């Protein structure tokens, strides 16, 4: 039984850290700011959750599990907010590259009301 838990924990830890690594690679390789935000918010959220599960399986202590739960919760609550704030600021400062967009339905709307 212990071996099974240890293996599950190891799998979670390795998968989680691989996802975080891929997120870092994506951050470097994607062409523009908004695409990079995807790399920042997606694999990294699941990556962190997997690492937390892996750590939780190893520790098996209620106090530590409470802490891990708090980390997971705050990650899920705050990641979209920070991504949104950066994306929004980028839009309003013309830091968005138009050549990577197939469709852009926001710029005309923003021009209507004026930027700011």
């Amino acid at each position, binding site marked *: 039984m212990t071996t099974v838990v240890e293996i599950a924990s190891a799998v979670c830890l390795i998968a989680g850290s691989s*996802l975080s690594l*891929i*997120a870092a*690679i*994506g951050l470097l*390789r*994607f*062409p523009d700011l*908004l*695409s990079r*935000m*995807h*790399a920042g*918010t*997606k*694999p990294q*959220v*699941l*990556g962190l959750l997997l690492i937390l599960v892996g750590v939780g399986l190893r520790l098996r202590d209620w*106090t*530590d599990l*409470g*802490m891990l*739960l*708090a980390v997971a919760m705050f990650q*899920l*609550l705050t*990641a*979209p907010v920070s*991504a*949104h704030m950066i*994306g*929004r600021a*980028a*839009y309003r400062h013309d830091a*968005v590259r138009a050549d*990577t*967009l*197939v*469709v*852009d*339905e*926001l*710029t005309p*709307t*923003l021009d209507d009301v004026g930027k700011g």
Partner: protein
Amino acid sequence: MSSPETPGAVPKRRRRLQWPILVWLTVVWALLWGDFSVANIAAGLVVALVVVVVFPLPPIVFGGKVRPVGLLRLIGRFVVDLIVASGQVARQALSIGRPPMSAVIQVDLRSRSDLYLTLTAELLSLVPGSLVVEVRRSTSTLFLHVLGVHDEADVERARRDALVQEERVVRALASDEELAAYRRAREGDPR
């Protein structure tokens, strides 16, 4: 709609003590200390009280009810989406050749509620290839940046996915009247 506020108006900051937030902050305090002793919880309560009194928040209007089946479906689908999203973005990050194209699309949500708007935006930001770059509260409109878009069909699919996400949120939390209003809004909207 059960919300008494007009959609555009920001609800007044309440003077009354907000009990749920007080309890929540105390729980977070205890979790962070990892200590559920009486003394620690009392200390947390004092800190929470100061935070609630000094920084009052506008109340969240929640006139709905929690529907267990809808909530399970929402959470289950979210976990699946999260895994699929991570796989897709990972593949795009590692693929050799041209970097993925993307699009910024406008999605007019059908419900008129701050809570559902926020939840839908949060969930959309966490799942497959979408990121909320702009929100119009007055019209419940989200502007999404979608990664890995090649043509018009992908754009329409992303728009549909966002509306389906909203539908799951509403079906998990809305009251009967809100659900009826939502259905009417959906019938008036062919997408």
